[in-house]
C-alpha cells in the first residue's frame, strides 16, 4: 500500500524544519511529490535498483565517515544523532527510484542480502516486493525527532502527520467520530506521557547523577570524594601520565590544577552540597568558554588531557577566566568550581587564560564554616592552642602553615590508629604524619574553627618537567589535595602539605619509569596527530568526497532507459521489453489454429508442432507450406541481420494467403480438424 499524495512531502518538510535542513527537505519533497504530476517513468531493472541501493549505502557510509572524522567537534553521541538526522537524505535515491519506476515497488532482495541469497534460483520463488513509502515516512518522523527543538510544535506536527495515514488505514467498522475521539484521547495521553517521561528523567538526573558519573568512568566525582584518611598502610598512586602542560618552557613556580572542591566533611569523606551545575555557553566560535567574568590576561598554559568516554572534569587553575580551543559538545560548571565537559574527543587540548586573584567559585556560605561533631573537640582544642580566634586572617594563615610545616611530616604510611579517636584526631594529636588529604582536611577544619571560610580541593600539582617532551607532565601520583580559603573577598589556594612530599613521591618512582615515559610520549604524539588532523585540512575536504558519489548516482540514472507512460495499459506493455520479431504475423496462424482446437503443447517447439500438423493434415503442406512460413518467421525472430523489406512483406503476404486458404478449405478437410 502506497502513501497518500502529499504525505511524504509533508513529512520531509517537517523533517527539514526540525533538523534545520529545510532547504534539503523542500527539495526532497518537491522531488518525490513531482512524480505524481509527471507521467514518465524509468524501467529500472533489478540490477539498477541494486546499484541505487548501493549508492544509498555509500552515501550513508560517506556521512558516517564524515561525522567520524569531525567527531572532535560534535562528540560521539551528537555525531550518531546527526547521522540519524541525515538518514532520509541517504535513502532518498531509493525512494525516488521507487516512485519514478514503472514497477512502483521495490523487490525485497534489492535491500536485504539474506533475501537475495534465498532467491538465487529464478522462477522458483515469487518476488517479494515492498512499498517503501510508509517506511520512509516513518523514517522522516524518527529522523526529525533526533533533533531537539524544545516547544510544543514538534508534538503538534507529529500528531497531525500520524493522524493522516492512520485515517487512511482505519477500520471501517468504527465510525469516523469515534476514530477522531479516540485519536484525540491518544494525543492527550501521549502529551501527558511525554511530559511525565521528561520529568522522570530530570528527577533521575538530579538524584542519580553521581551514580551515572561513576558508571561512565569519570575519575572525579563532583559530588563527593572518598579520602584515604583512616586507611592503614601505604598510599600508593600510579606513575601514569594523566596530563601534559605547556607553559612555553620550564617555569620554576609550581601550579595547582583543581578539578573539584567540596564543602562538607563527614567520616573521611568530603561532599559537595547544593552544587547545582549550570551550563556554560560557548562563544560563537564554539570552542571558547568563559567560566568567570573579568579581565583575562594572555594565554598562560596549554593543557593536554585524555577524556574517557568523551566526558570528564577539567583540571584548571584557580584563577581561570576563559578556556580556549576546547572542542567539546557542552560544558557545565557547579557552584564549587568543578567544570564538567561532555561530547569531547579522546584527547582534548585547551588553552587557559587567567586573570586576577578572584576564582570561579560561589561566595562562602554557612556550610563553609561547619565542622563535623566528631572532629570538633580536637579542632577546637588545637585552634585554641594556636590562638587562631584572636588573629587577623592573614596571620591565621601564617600560623596554620607554620604549625603544619614545623610539627608535622609528610608520610604515605599510616600505622594502626587508636580506636578511641578519629583518624584525623589521631593525625593531629599523635602521629603528626600523613599524606596530603590529612593536611588539607585538617587545614580546612582549623581555618573554619578560626572563622575563615574554607573548602577542600582536589586536583594535581604540576611539578615535573619532561626534557623528552619539553612539557610539564602530571602523573597520577601527583594528585593532590589542598585547602581553598576565602580571604580578602576571594577564594585562594592554601597548601599546607610539607614540600618534602614532592621529593618523597619522586623517590617512589620505579626504575622503568623512563621507559614508560618514552612509550607514553609516543602514544601522546600519535593521539595528538590523530585528533589535531581532524581539526586541520582533512575535515575541510571530506565533504568533497561526497561529490563523486552523486556523480555516480547521476550517471546511473542518466543511462537507465526511460519509457513513456501514457496510461495504465501502455504502462503494462512497457514493463515487458518487446522482443525482436514479436509482431510477426505467424502469431496469427498460431492463434487461429488454437481457436480451432489445434493447440501446441507447452513443451513443443514450433517446428515440431508444424511437422505434426503437416503429417496429420496433408492439405496444410500443399502449395505454400507452413514450414516455409515458419522459416521466415524464425529468421525474423532470431536472425541478427533480420529480414529484408521484401522478405518481411513476403512473410506478411504468405501468412494472409495461408489464413485465407484455411478459411476456404474443402469441407472434407474441415470435418477432421478437431481430431488433430
Amino acid at each position, binding site marked *: 500500500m502506497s502513501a497518500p499524495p502529499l504525505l511524504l512531502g509533508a513529512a520531509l518538510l517537517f523533517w527539514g524544519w526540525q533538523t534545520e535542513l529545510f532547504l534539503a527537505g523542500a527539495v526532497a519533497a518537491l522531488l518525490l511529490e513531482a512524480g505524481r504530476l509527471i507521467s514518465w517513468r524509468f524501467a529500472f531493472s533489478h540490477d539498477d535498483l541494486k546499484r541505487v541501493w548501493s549508492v544509498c549505502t555509500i552515501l550513508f557510509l560517506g556521512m558516517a565517515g564524515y561525522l567520524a572524522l569531525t567527531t572532535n567537534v560534535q562528540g560521539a553521541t551528537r555525531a550518531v544523532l546527526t547521522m540519524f538526522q541525515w538518514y532520509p537524505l541517504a535513502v532518498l535515491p531509493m525512494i525516488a527510484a521507487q516512485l519514478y519506476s514503472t514497477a512502483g515497488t521495490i523487490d525485497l532482495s534489492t535491500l536485504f542480502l539474506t533475501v537475495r541469497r534465498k532467491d538465487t534460483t529464478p522462477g522458483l520463488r515469487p518476488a517479494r516486493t515492498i512499498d517503501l513509502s510508509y517506511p520512509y515516512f516513518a523514517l522522516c518522523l524518527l529522523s526529525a*525527532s*533526533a533533533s*531537539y527543538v524544545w516547544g510544543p510544535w514538534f*508534538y503538534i506536527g507529529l500528531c497531525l502527520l500520524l493522524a493522516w495515514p492512520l485515517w487512511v488505514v*482505519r*477500520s471501517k*467498522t468504527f465510525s469516523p467520530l469515534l476514530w477522531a475521539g479516540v485519536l484525540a484521547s491518544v494525543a492527550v495521553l501521549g502529551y501527558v506521557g511525554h511530559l511525565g517521561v521528561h520529568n522522570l528523567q530530570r528527577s533521575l538526573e538530579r538524584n542519580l547523577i553521581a551514580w551515572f558519573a561513576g558508571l561512565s568512568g569519570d575519575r572525579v566525582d563532583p559530588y563527593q570524594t572518598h579520602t584515604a584518611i583512616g586507611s592503614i598502610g601505604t598510599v600508593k598512586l600510579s606513575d601514569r601520565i594523566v596530563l601534559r602542560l605547556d607553559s612555553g618552557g620550564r617555569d620554576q613556580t609550581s601550579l595547582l590544577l583543581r578539578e573539584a572542591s567540596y564543602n562538607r566533611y563527614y567520616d573521611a569523606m568530603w561532599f559537595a552540597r547544593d552544587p547545582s551545575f549550570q551550563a556554560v555557553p560557548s562563544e560563537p566560535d564554539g570552542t571558547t568558554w568563559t567560566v568567570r567574568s573579568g579581565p583575562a590576561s594572555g594565554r598562560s598554559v596549554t593543557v593536554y588531557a585524555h577524556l574517557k568516554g568523551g566526558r570528564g572534569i577539567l583540571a584548571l587553575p584557580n584563577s581561570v577566566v576563559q578556556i580556549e580551543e576546547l572542542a567539546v559538545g557542552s560544558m557545565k560548571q557547579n557552584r564549587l568550581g568543578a567544570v564538567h565537559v561532555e561530547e569531547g574527543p579522546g584527547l582534548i587540548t585547551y588553552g587557559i587564560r587567567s586573570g586576577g586573584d578572584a576564582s570561579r567559585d560561589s561566595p562562602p556560605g554557612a556550610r563553609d564554616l561547619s565542622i563535623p561533631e566528631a572532629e570538633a573537640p580536637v579542632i577546637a582544642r588545637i585552634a585554641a592552642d594556636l590562638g587562631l580566634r584572636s588573629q587577623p586572617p592573614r596571620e591565621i594563615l601564617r600560623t596554620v602553615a607554620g604549625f603544619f610545616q614545623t610539627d608535622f611530616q609528610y608520610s604515605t604510611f599510616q600505622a594502626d590508629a587508636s580506636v578511641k579517636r578519629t583518624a584525623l584526631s589521631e593525625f593531629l594529636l599523635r602521629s603528626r604524619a600523613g599524606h596530603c588529604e590529612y593536611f588539607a582536611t585538617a587545614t580546612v577544619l582549623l581555618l573554619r574553627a578560626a572563622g575563615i571560610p574554607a573548602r577542600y580541593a582536589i586536583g594535581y600539582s604540576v611539578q615535573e618537567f619532561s626534557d623528552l617532551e619539553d612539557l610539564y607532565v602530571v602523573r597520577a601520583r601527583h594528585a593532590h589535595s589542598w585547602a581553598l580559603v576565602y580571604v580578602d573577598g576571594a577564594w585562594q589556594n592554601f597548601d599546607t602539605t610539607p614540600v618534602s612530599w614532592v621529593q618523597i613521591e619522586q623517590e617512589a618512582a620505579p626504575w622503568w619509569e623512563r621507559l614508560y615515559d618514552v612509550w607514553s610520549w609516543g602514544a601522546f604524539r600519535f593521539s595528538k596527530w590523530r585528533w589535531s588532523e581532524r581539526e586541520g585540512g582533512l575535515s575541510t575536504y571530506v565533504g568533497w568526497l561526497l561529490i563523486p558519489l552523486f556523480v555516480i548516482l547521476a550517471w546511473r540514472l542518466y543511462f537507465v532507459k526511460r519509457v513513456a507512460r501514457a496510461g495504465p495499459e501502455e504502462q503494462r506493455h512497457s514493463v515487458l521489453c518487446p522482443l525482436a520479431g514479436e509482431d510477426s504475423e505467424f502469431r496469427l496462424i498460431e492463434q487461429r489454429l488454437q481457436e480451432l482446437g489445434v493447440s501446441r503443447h507447452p*513443451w513443443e517447439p514450433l517446428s515440431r508442432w508444424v511437422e505434426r500438423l503437416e503429417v496429420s493434415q496433408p492439405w496444410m503442406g500443399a502449395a505454400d507450406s507452413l514450414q516455409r512460413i515458419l522459416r521466415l518467421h524464425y529468421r525474423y525472430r532470431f536472425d541478427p541481420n533480420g529480414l529484408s523489406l521484401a522478405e518481411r512483406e513476403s512473410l506478411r503476404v504468405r501468412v494472409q494467403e495461408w489464413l485465407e486458404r484455411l478459411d476456404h478449405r474443402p469441407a472434407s478437410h474441415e470435418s477432421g480438424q478437431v481430431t488433430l
Partner: protein
Amino acid sequence: MKRVLYPYLRLVSSIQYWMQRRFTKAGLLVLTGLVASAVLGLDTTRTMAYQVFTFLFCLLMVSLAFSLSFRARLAVERILPQFGTVGQPLSYRIRVHNRDHRALRGLTLLEDLIDPRPSREEFVRTPEPGEERRNRFDRAVGYPRWRWLISRNRTAVIEEHALPSIPAQGLGEVLAGCVPSRRGQVRFAGVTVARPDPFGLFKGFVSVPLPQNVLIIPKRYVLPQIQLPGTRRYQHGGVALASSVGDSDEFVSLREYRPGDPLRHIHWKSWARVGKPIVKEHQSEFFVRHALILDTFQEAEHSDVFEEAVSVAASFACTVRTQESLLDLMFVGPEAYCETVGRGLGRTDTLLKVLACVRPCTNRPFESLHHLIIERSASLSGCICIFLSWDDARQNLIKNLHVLDIPTLVLIITEADMPLALAPGPMTATTQGFHRLEVGKIQEGLANL
C-alpha cells in the same frame, strides 16, 4: 547446544506467530517505530523521540484495549475438496454463521493450522539440506534449520481473507484458498475471526475449533506421449485381476459393455441386435504390466531430489493409460510396498494418495527394493525406474532386469549443480532409455523423453 536453545527458539517462533497474526502491517510499522523511538529517545534532553515513543505507546495501548472488547458468537463450517496439488491453487469455502443479534462488519478470517514447530528430537536430529555449507554460528545455533523445519512441516500458508458483512443471525461465506507448497496433509485446527481496532493496527480474535485435513498430492509434470517399453506377459491369476476377462485371440463369450472396455472389443452386430453395447470377452492370459519403481533410499530426511522424484512418479502414474494395462508402484518405506492400478483394479488417485505420503527410507538398504522387484519380475512387461542416484546397487538392479529381458526406462534425478555427466553403465546399449533430470529443469528433461 540445540537442546538448550530449543525452548528459546520455540518462544521466538511463538512471538513471531503472535505478532504476525495480531498486528496488521500498519501495526507492525507502528511497533517498529515504537522500538526505534524508545532507543532514540533514551535521553529526553537530547532528542524529541521520547514524544514519538509516548504517542505510539498510547496508540498501541488503546488499540490493544479495543481488541479485548471484541466478542462474537459464531459457528463456522469449512467445505474442503478431497485433494489439493502442490503448486496449484487450492480453493474452498468457509461459511460463518453469526449467532449474535448484531451485524458483523469489517472482519477478516484466519485459518488456524496445527502447530508446525518441530519437536526437540526432530530439531536435534534433522539437518537442513545444505546445512554443511552454512557458517559455524548458524550450524551451532540452528536457527536456519529451525526455520526450514517449520516451513517443511507447514504444508501451506493460508493468507488472511476478508469476510463480507454478516447480518444478525445471518450467514457469510468466503472463498478461501492457498497454494500448497509441499505434499502431505494440510491440517486445520480451527478458524479465527479477527476485528481490527479503529486505527487498523491490532486485531481482536474470536476462535472456533474446527479440525479438518486435506491431502496435498505431489506436483505433476506434463509428459509427452511415451511408448512404454515391454511386451505383454502372462499374468498369473490375471482373470481375477481384471475387470474384462482378457484379450487373447480365443473368444470366450459376449457380455454387456462396462466403462473402460476397449472400443475394438465391441461386437457391433450384437449391439445392433440388442440395442445396447455388447463386448467380446477373450481368454485372459496376457496383458501389459508395468512397474513404476520409486527410489526412496537416501540418508537425509528431506531433499529436493527426493521431492522431484515423487513428482515424476506422480506424473507417470497419471499419464500411463491404465485402461488396458496394469501399473505397479513399488517403493520401500517402513516396509516394502507394491500398489497396483489399472484395468479397473484401482484408480490413479490411489497412487497419488500413496505418493502424497511417501517418505524417504533412511534405515534400510537399496537391496530391499531390489528383492521386491525381482520377486515380481516374472509378470512385468517393463520398468520405469526413478532413481535418486546411479550407484552400483542401482546399476546391479538394472543389469538383473536386463538379464530377465525386462526393458527399462531409467530416470536419474540429480541436483541442479551436479557438473559431471552420468555414465550410462548397464544402459549403454539402450541409452535412449536413460535420462538424467536436473532439479529445476525437470519439465525440460521430461519433454525429451
